[in-house]
């Protein structure tokens, strides 16, 4: 993992005027290309960090005996894109496994939206993530990363994922900057459509 960690001394810093951080989360199973996608569009080499959850931080206010408490650690990668002189978008690659979702609210409350990255050879890996995003009310799109496996039609993938027809499904190549950028634009356009619909409705 050392190679994935960039040296703060050489990492491009944010500009002095930066004052608003935004979040987008890329969710997907192991090896589906989350970090590859983040790396393709990030201004910096992806960094890795982690969060631990102890019983105490779940809200039990007992400061004694910390060392006896069980803790769960989840690691995640991230990169960033400076959108303008004030706004910086952070992209998080998050594993879709069950224990991770205990930390979703703490880490990703206020996220703009999510990209569920899927490998059509292992679609079942995404079911849980899609279910959880719906549960959390986080808007998302699904991006199918091209691993050169058997070709399924979009309808077949939608059926296999039991995907709401309103959720965009697109193909991508996470290694390509242009393609990864298109994934993010598709997500934000989807968010804009949802926000416009809501404004019209209210």
């Amino acid at each position, binding site marked *: 993992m050392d190679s994935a960690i960039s040296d703060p001394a050489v990492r491009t810093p944010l500009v*002095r005027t930066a004052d608003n951080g935004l979040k987008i989360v890329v969710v997907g199973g192991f090896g589906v290309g989350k970090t590859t996608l983040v790396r393709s569009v990030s201004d910096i080499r992806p960094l*890795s960090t*982690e969060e631990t959850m102890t019983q105490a931080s779940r809200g039990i206010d007992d400061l004694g005996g910390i060392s006896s408490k069980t803790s769960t650690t989840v690691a995640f990668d991230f990169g960033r894109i400076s*959108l303008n002189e004030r706004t910086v978008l952070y992209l998080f690659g998050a594993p879709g496994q069950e224990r991770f979702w205990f930390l979703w609210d703490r880490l990703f409350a206020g996220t703009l939206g999510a990209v569920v990255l899927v490998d059509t050879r292992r679609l079942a890996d995404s079911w849980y993530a899609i279910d959880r995003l719906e549960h959390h009310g986080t808007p998302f799109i699904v991006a199918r990363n091209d691993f050169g496996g058997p070709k399924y039609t979009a309808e077949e993938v939608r059926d296999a994922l039991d995907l709401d027809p309103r959720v965009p499904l697109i193909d991508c190549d996470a290694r390509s900057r242009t393609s990864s950028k298109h994934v993010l634009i598709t997500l934000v356009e989807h968010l*804009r459509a949802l926000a416009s619909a809501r404004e019209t409705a209210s």
Partner: protein
Amino acid sequence: MIRPGRDDSPDRLYTLTGGRSRSDAHDFDLVTLVVSESEATLGMQSEHAAILRMCRLPTAVVEIAADLRLPVSIVKIMLSDLLDMGRITARHPRAVPSRAELPDLPLLEQVLVGLRNL
């Protein structure tokens, strides 16, 4: 490679934060941008000094955690201490939608313009 968060005993992390397991007053987000308001001084806890050095320009909480190789929650406690001492300021994310709410249209337009210009 040594990763303090993963490999150390919880006792060490507990010591780093002066014995607290969570921050009370300040609600740091992963993407809250932190800016130093003073230089590191001699005798200061080394992690505090490192934070002050790395935040001469705005730096997100999550980047600080990655550079210090500490769990995010531990870093938030140290940041709360530095904020209480007036040694840093925090630029919290604006227009953060609460659960099941969408960000406003002008913000989304701004994000789209930025992404298209990449």
